[in-house]
């Protein structure tokens, strides 16, 4: 039983390595002067639907004007950033449709090159806002969840639901400083990068389907932001698989556009205990240009054996705003498994293009190199071309 469940868990983790960004947080936008995710997202730590300000910012600062009439005022573009290109009339409800698809070429340029198209995300979100200053919030996101690649065409695939909710919560935010949220959410740990396949997300198991039911307390001031998260696992999972524990992430602002942060997470289920620590820095450089660096350590201790595993990761990202609508992203990642002393380094240059509001096109080229004492393995090149649409 343990073996088969472990296999499923490991397959899910492994499969995620080859999936591309789904999370919708853009922590690199510290380069635009936005230190906190809550400026643009309903969820204070990012991901999920964006709020009215986030939509307007995306339309008038991030997206290109290339496909708009030169005379069209920014104010009008901003107004059209709402659901179905309309300015919201109802003050209580904010729907959002979101789609991400990816053309993935694994072993790009090699004889064994494979090509797949993956519908990564097709979500409908609904946010309810009530009370003075929208202090009561309810959010639910429901949508398509692809069968992990490793499980496709296997008997297990039949039992995997391809529709699920990745986020639903109730929140109470009496003022700008404090907020409390309860429901299914991503755990508060590390920098919530858009690339959920990065080692900084896969190593502590914080990828596309790793949300957990729990409570998040969020504290936010210009100089300090923190979140504490107690969770009991995803209640749709079998009880023995649910990862229960707590997580916390804390950021301190230095010199206005720089943030240093620490994160901790301790969790476990019937089979494994996991403890993770991370430190990070995010810096806004010139207008729209930023760097992110995160380093972390994850200990995984199986309860049925003495073979504990310690993993290390780091990621460096440099996002460069070439012009309005075009961003170059330079990612360098490191992953080390302390058991066999092997390690991997992944270079991932990419280009993001927002031709107009509600459309993002992105191309990534990943070069992964394995370093091992045992053998020399040929580099792996993967090409990822994505489209992201939201209404």
């Amino acid at each position, binding site marked *: 039983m343990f073996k088969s469940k472990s296999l499923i868990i490991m397959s899910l983790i492994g499969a995620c390595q080859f999936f591309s960004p789904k999370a919708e947080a853009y922590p690199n936008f510290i380069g635009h002067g936005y230190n906190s995710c809550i400026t643009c997202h309903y969820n204070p730590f990012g991901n999920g639907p964006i709020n009215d300000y986030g939509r307007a910012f995306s339309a008038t600062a991030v997206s290109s004007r290339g496909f708009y009439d030169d005379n069209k005022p920014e104010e009008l573009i901003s107004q059209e950033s709402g659901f179905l290109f309309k300015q919201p009339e109802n003050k209580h409800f904010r729907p959002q449709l979101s789609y991400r698809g990816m053309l993935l070429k694994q072993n790009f340029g090699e004889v064994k090159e494979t090509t797949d198209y993956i519908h990564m995300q097709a979500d409908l979100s609904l946010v309810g806002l009530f009370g003075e200053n929208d202090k009561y919030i309810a959010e639910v996101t429901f949508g398509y969840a692809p069968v992990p690649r490793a499980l496709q065409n296997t008997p297990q695939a039949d039992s995997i639901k391809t529709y699920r909710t990745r986020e639903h919560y109730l929140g109470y935010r009496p003022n700008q400083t404090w907020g409390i949220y309860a429901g299914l959410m991503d755990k508060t740990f590390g920098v919530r990068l858009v690339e959920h396949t990065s080692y900084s997300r896969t190593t502590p198991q914080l990828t596309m389907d790793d949300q957990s039911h729990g409570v998040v307390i969020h504290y936010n001031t210009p100089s300090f932001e923190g979140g504490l998260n107690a969770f009991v696992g995803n209640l749709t999972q079998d009880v023995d698989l649910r990862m229960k524990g707590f997580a916390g992430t804390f950021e301190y602002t230095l010199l206005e556009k720089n943030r240093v942060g620490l994160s901790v997470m301790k969790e476990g289920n019937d089979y494994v205990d996991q403890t993770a620590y991370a430190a990070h820095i995010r810096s806004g450089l010139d207008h729209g240009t930023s760097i992110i660096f995160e380093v972390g350590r994850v200990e995984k201790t199986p309860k049925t054996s003495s073979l504990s595993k310690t993993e290390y990761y780091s990621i460096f990202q440099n996002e460069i705003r070439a012009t309005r609508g075009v961003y170059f992203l330079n990612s360098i990642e490191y992953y080390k498994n302390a058991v066999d002393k092997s390690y991997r380094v992944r270079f991932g240059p990419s280009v993001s293009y927002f031709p107009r509001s509600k459309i993002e096109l992105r191309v990534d080229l990943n070069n992964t190199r394995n370093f091992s004492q045992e053998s*020399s*393995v040929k*580099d792996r090149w993967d090409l990822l071309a994505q489209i992201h649409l939201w209404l």
Partner: protein
Amino acid sequence: MMKIKLTLLTFIISFSAIAANTPLDNLKLMQLYLDKNQLEKVEDLYDENEEILGKNWMALERLAISFERREKFKEAIETYRKIIVNFNKEAHEKILATSASKMDSSYYDKTKLQLYYYKLAFLNTQLFSKTNSYTPGNDRSKYKKNAEGFIGLARKVKVDEGDLKLLEDLLQEKINSDERMTYKSHYYASLDFISWQDRLYLVNTSGVKTNLLSTAIGTCIGGGKKWENVNFEFDLEGCFAVLTATISSEDRTVKYQQSSVAVKGFVAGPGMYFKTFSDNVLLGVHVPVKYRQGDWTNPDETQYRFEREKTYEAGYFLQSKIKIKNVSLRTRLGKVFPNPGSLWSIGLLYDF
């Protein structure tokens, strides 16, 4: 109605032009042309009546204004100089000979030298601001010197300090802009983590080749010289690399594996960066020429020899650099041919 008025105006101007035959008439006509912004007619009228109007400072003043409006700055300067020399010589020489502290307003009260000095300062500043890489160096320095000189004279005769400060700011802005366009050279030191993956062959006595793949990582210490202006940065650099490699056979016909192999080499070549997006975050390319040799162990020297044991290769890097004062963080990803894997480096640079 409008059409009739225009026709009437044109008629009056044309008639006046024909009728004008005294300096005063011509002067009035010049002023009329100026008011109507018919600048070429101002100059035509002056040319036709130069003998008379050249002796009238008011006509010369209007001619200078016309030149100025048409951005014929050199001609405007020449005209103002003529006015000063022909009509204000005595006062001008007196001002030149008097120090600023001893300047008496009676020297220039009854003249328009305050205006002329300011105009000359302004026009020379304009000329200097419009210089570019095609302007002869002598002219550039002459315009700048003249502008500074006339700003000094204008200050002597108490021209409004705010106006003069504006001209000085314009001059300084141009000086700074020229400086930014000028290429400056610096030396720098570099320390990189570098990694590459390359291929060599184990060849047996029958000539059968076995592919060996080597994955190496280490440090590369060196430096270079760079030439940079506000838009571009060009460099020429080299570094000495010390690495360790794991090498193994790519197929199973011959089993070969060795780890922690010492590899040495150097990487050198020219590169460049664009500063289009930011002064502090640069993107560019580099053309590396790489030499490497490794302490590969030959399993049996009587049976095998290495091919590409020592080799020169060339390729390309795409590179980015983040500058924080004298220190830069540089990342490079590229390829050297004919190797299957990439060549990359992450390093720090220090500008001297």
